[in-house]
């Protein structure tokens, strides 16, 4: 993905979005403390330092999901990606990070599609994710996360995947975050968290 890329192809856009998700999910896991901080290592991406996990199982899982997601992005059959954070003891869903995807299938190579602008947008989104942690309620109990993908109904479900429920939060507060677009794919981000009784 060189900076001198003039236009952007569907494949390139899919790769960009998949990369964003990979780093975005890692940031969420680090910020929310789903995995201990010492299992993360610092890397540089999008001209900022981000946290990436070193846990082998987690890495494996993420690469599986992201690679499958890339294919689907290329086919434009994916509608949403959701990171669901559940409390282990009560099996309640505490947080939902939802990324809506809009695929412009009538893609055409625009005149000016700068990689830098897309990167700038991605940077702002990731910064915002880090910032939202300040007002999200503390996750006091041990939590685990899950990645859900909303696809078209007629999509063939691959072997290791299965259908699941949407895992909605009971009594949630939603906050809409920034979005970014590669002119082929548009990614809207939002976070929903369980309303705590004090608020």
């Amino acid at each position, binding site marked *: 993905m060189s900076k001198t890329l003039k236009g952007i192809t569907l494949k390139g856009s899919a790769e960009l979005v998949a990369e964003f998700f990979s780093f975005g999910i890692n940031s969420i896991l680090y910020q929310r403390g789903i995995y201990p901080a010492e299992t993360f290592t610092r890397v540089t991406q999008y001209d900022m330092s981000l946290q990436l996990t070193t846990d082998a199982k987690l890495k494996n*899982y993420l690469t599986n999901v992201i690679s499958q997601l890339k294919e689907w992005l290329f086919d434009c059959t994916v509608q949403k990606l959701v990171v669901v954070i559940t409390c282990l003891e009560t*099996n309640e869903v505490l947080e*939902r990070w939802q990324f809506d995807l809009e695929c412009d299938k009538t893609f055409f190579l625009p005149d000016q599609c700068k990689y830098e602008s897309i990167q700038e947008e991605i940077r702002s989104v990731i910064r915002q994710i880090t910032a939202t942690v300040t007002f999200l309620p503390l996750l006091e109990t041990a939590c*685990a*996360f*899950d990645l*859900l993908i909303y696809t078209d109904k007629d999509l063939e479900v691959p072997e290791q995947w299965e*259908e*699941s429920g949407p895992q909605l939060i009971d009594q949630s507060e939603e906050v809409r975050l920034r979005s970014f677009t590669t002119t082929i794919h548009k990614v809207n981000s939002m976070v929903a968290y369980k309303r705590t009784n004090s608020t």
Partner: protein
Amino acid sequence: MDDMEDTTIFSTLKSFKSLISGPDHSLLETEPAYGRSDLQKLYTKRVELEEAAERVRSHTSLLQLTQEKQQMELSHKRARIELEKEAHSSSRDLQREIDRNRELLLKIRRLEEREEKANQALNEQMENNKALKRNLEELHKKANVKDSKLTEADQMISELKDETRRLNQKIQIQESKFSTQNLEIQALQEQLDVQRKKYQDVSQRYQNLQSSHSISTESELKMKELERRLALQEQDSVIVKNMKSEMVRLPELEREIKRLREENCFLRETKENNSLLKEETEGLRKKLERVERVMEEKLKAELEKEKLEQELQAWENIGQAAGLNIRKPEDLSREVIQIQQRELNLKQQNYTLNSRKAIDEVAQTQAGAGHLKAKFLELKLVLLYVGQERDGMRAILESYDSELATSEYSPQLMFRVKEAEDMLQKVQAHNTEMETQLSKAQEEAGSFKLQVQMMTAELEALKEQHVSNAEKNTLATAEEVSSLRQKIEELEAERQRLEEQNNILEMRLERHNLQGDYDPVKTKVIHLQMNPTSIAKQQHAEEVEQLRLECQLLRDRIRKIEAGGGVTKDDTTLIIPPSQEILDLRKQMESAELKNQRLKEVFQKKIQEFRTACYVLTGYQIDITVENQYRLTSVYAEHMEDSLLFKSTGPVGSGSMQLLETDFSRTLTGLVDLHLFHQKSIPVFLSAVTIELFSRQTVT
């Protein structure tokens, strides 16, 4: 007062001085007047001096008096003060006395009360005393009574003692008698022995006799049995002979059986054949019946055929007679069809008329009505024509009927009558139809008239409108405009409402979208099966399970430790490695237990040996039933329960025993008296008892 005194003194002094100086002045003034006046002057001076002195004296006496008065007053005052003080003190004393008085009175009262209480107590005590005295008296009386009783009892005792002495004497007498009787008993026993021997001999002989009797009876029984058997055998031989004869017959019987079986089969087959034949016959009978029926029907049909032929001929004749060119029923039908066609034509004409009316309403209503009337008349004429035809047909029929007068009168007639009636009914139906159509036509005519009227009215209204249109043009447009405006406003309001709804729905959709809702028709949610949440849940559950198991095991271990108190030899997963001390102690414990066990066994064996030895040698089994009580059972005891009870008295180990009474000991009173009371030796008594029992046991 002193100041007063001083001031008076000073005032008097001043006055005295003034007096003195006065006369001096007067003296000085009057110095030039010498002569007699000197004596007079001296005399006056003396008199004045004396007056002055008197005055002074009086003054001084006054002063003194005043002083005395003042002193008196002072003293008075002092006295008064003292008196007052005294009065105060006396009053205080009084008060004190009064208080004391009161207190004393209170004390007196209290004392009085106490006195009263004391008196009451005294009285009560007195009463108690009296009661006690009474009790005492009663007790004395009782004591006296008891004394008397005691004396009586003493008397009784003395009497009883006398009696016991007498009884003892009697006992002794009886003992002597007893001993003599014992001797007699011994003699008798010897006789008894002899008798017993005889008895045994006799019993033996008796037994022999009985055995021989039994043998004889047995032999008799055997004889009877043998005789029975003989009889049975004779019967059997007879039976055998019969059987032999029967046996001879066997082959013949077998042959017969075979024959019978063959016959049986044959008969069964014939039976089947029979059933089949029966079915055939039934079938043939049914056929016969059917054929007969068919024959009957054929006959009937032939008859009918003849009838129909005759009728045909008659119909053909009708045609010839009526002149309607009717040779076949088809012609009749044609005629009917023609009539119907005419009717249809009429109907069509009616309809055309109606249509013409509809077209020419405005102009030719009355002409239409006239037309209608004409047509109505025409239709009436047609009706009449049809009626005439009908009448003609009826006449024909009647003539036809009248022609026929010969055979087969009634059925043919009936048939014809039926046909005629049918025709009649058809014609009537046609009639009614025509009439209904006529009525309809009339109604339509009426309705058309109404329409015509309405149309004319509308025409007039339109004409009026045309006339007034020019006037009302603007009003109409204004009304239209207002109505249109209202509609516009309504539509606008609706549009706004719909817009708001739309907004709300969009918000809701957005909200749901944010929350993660999806349309199940178009989307589905998938995730990896092996996802971190499921893995974490599994691990969590496993951890919980493991912890629970650990908890359970620990609890069991704790319980066992608390109950056992140390060594737990169960297979708990948590094994604390035992220290060396604990192992040594355990070994020691085990060895001590083993020693204990062995000692117990040895002791048990020894005790058992000793007891058996005692039993065998002394002839008594000694059991300790209760603490300090020993039960002795003799070897030669007649019953199991015969036992002697001894109780150990005195300190342990001294060996002093007492015999306690049991049923068995009551039977040995003689021995008890002799050996225990007189000789006071327990071993002798026991040996006497064994000898006694032994002698009882063996009677030889």
